[in-house]
């Protein structure tokens, strides 16, 4: 179970269906809180960096990494292997590629070559049409609106990706549950771990995701909002609660 933090202009935000970014606080502060709560892993995605064609904000990542005593994965604006290497040097365990991977999976191979396959994840955003047909959401690339999600994740695995971050656009921020069908179909296509994100509204949704085949579940709203008015309150269940939830002995 992995908190997913979104950055926009150096602030922490939360979106609904990839829009309406709402400012929720200082990212460094959030990292400190998650440290104390002994979170399994943290994913930080800069949702501005690719859109505005700026590279990663190395200063901010460095600051976050220095406070983060748990695994840190970073995505946003990485378009060259050198940028990934620089991020590893700052204390990032894993880089997440989205736009650049959708443009050309060669970059995944290049990073896996120098840093090992477990250091590179490919983020796959999936949206649905009004008729319920799923397609790749990848604006600005040739793959945008492509319906063959399986082929893309298989290609990403072949290219050397060590993980798939499977993100459901239509469920983002809605807290109405993960897209379990999508998780089952994607996990059946690849052998690498799949982390599912988008829609978790309760701890039960997390165990559903794991049962559907996900190796991990990313959580946004659930850990940062509290109550029906969505007040900002960072929370995280204890290890024992999680274990009980997932039925481990």
């Amino acid at each position: 179970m992995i908190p997913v933090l979104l950055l926009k202009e150096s602030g922490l935000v939360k979106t609904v269906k990839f829009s309406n970014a709402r400012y929720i606080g200082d990212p460094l502060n959030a990292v400190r809180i998650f440290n104390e709560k002994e979170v399994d892993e943290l994913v930080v995605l800069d949702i501005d960096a690719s859109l505005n064609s700026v590279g990663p904000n190395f200063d901010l990542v460095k600051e976050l990494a220095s406070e983060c005593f748990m695994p840190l994965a970073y995505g946003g604006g990485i378009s060259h292997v050198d940028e990934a290497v620089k991020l590893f040097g700052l204390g990032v365990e894993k880089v997440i590629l989205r736009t650049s991977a959708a443009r050309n999976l060669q970059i995944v191979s290049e990073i896996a070559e120098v840093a090992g396959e477990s250091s590179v994840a490919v983020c796959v955003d999936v949206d649905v049409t009004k008729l319920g047909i799923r397609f790749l959401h990848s604006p600005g690339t040739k793959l945008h609106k492509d319906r063959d999600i399986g082929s893309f994740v298989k290609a990403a695995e072949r290219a050397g990706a060590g993980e798939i971050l499977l993100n459901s656009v239509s469920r983002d921020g809605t807290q109405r549950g993960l897209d379990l069908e999508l998780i089952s179909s994607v996990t059946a296509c690849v052998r690498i771990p799949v982390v599912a994100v988008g829609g978790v509204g309760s701890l039960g949704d997390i165990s559903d995701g794991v049962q559907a085949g996900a190796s991990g579940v990313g959580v946004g709203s659930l850990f940062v909002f509290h109550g029906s008015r969505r007040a900002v309150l960072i929370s995280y269940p204890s290890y024992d609660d999680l274990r009980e939830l997932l039925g481990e002995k």
Partner: protein
Amino acid sequence: MILIVDAGLGNVMAVRNMLGRIGCASALAKHPPEEFEAGIRIILPGVGSYDEGVRRLTQTGWFSYLKALPASAHLLGICLGMQLLGNSSTEGKSSGLGRVDAHFERFSSIGLRVPHIGWNRVVPVVEDPLFGNVETELRYYFTHSYRAVCHDQESEIARTEYGIDFTSAFRSGNTRGVQFHPEKSHRFGISLLKNWATLPC
């Protein structure tokens, strides 16, 4: 003083940050010291592929230094750093440092997701000061595709289960290797690094 091998193999800052947090002085070292100093402690962190790791260590002069390091010196390899302490890996063609008699093989069980990414239990099989007095279950963060196969059972100090039961920590003299990332395993990692940093010389 703890030297962290900074050969461009990834997460050096993460190690330094955690040492700072537990109050241990450390320095990043792109090249080995000119002479061997008594009481030196070295951490060899690493993220990357085997041959690339050997290449970078060789390029920076670290390879020959670490190969010749006396067995009494405290050396800790983390993740790829652990793998480089062994003889070889099926991931690459290069020879490792050969400080611990082990080789590395890819996880190959059917149906297992590789790489092994995430938190997992680590069970010490012998008493080693690295893990101190184990009272609770130990959990650490892993991210790797290759696992150690020790040729000498004596060198194994901890095991972890992922599809199969594999060696997650080994030692030979004062050379130790851990497959997981203590620097990213919050309180478990803090106590491991503290134990290691205070081992008597």
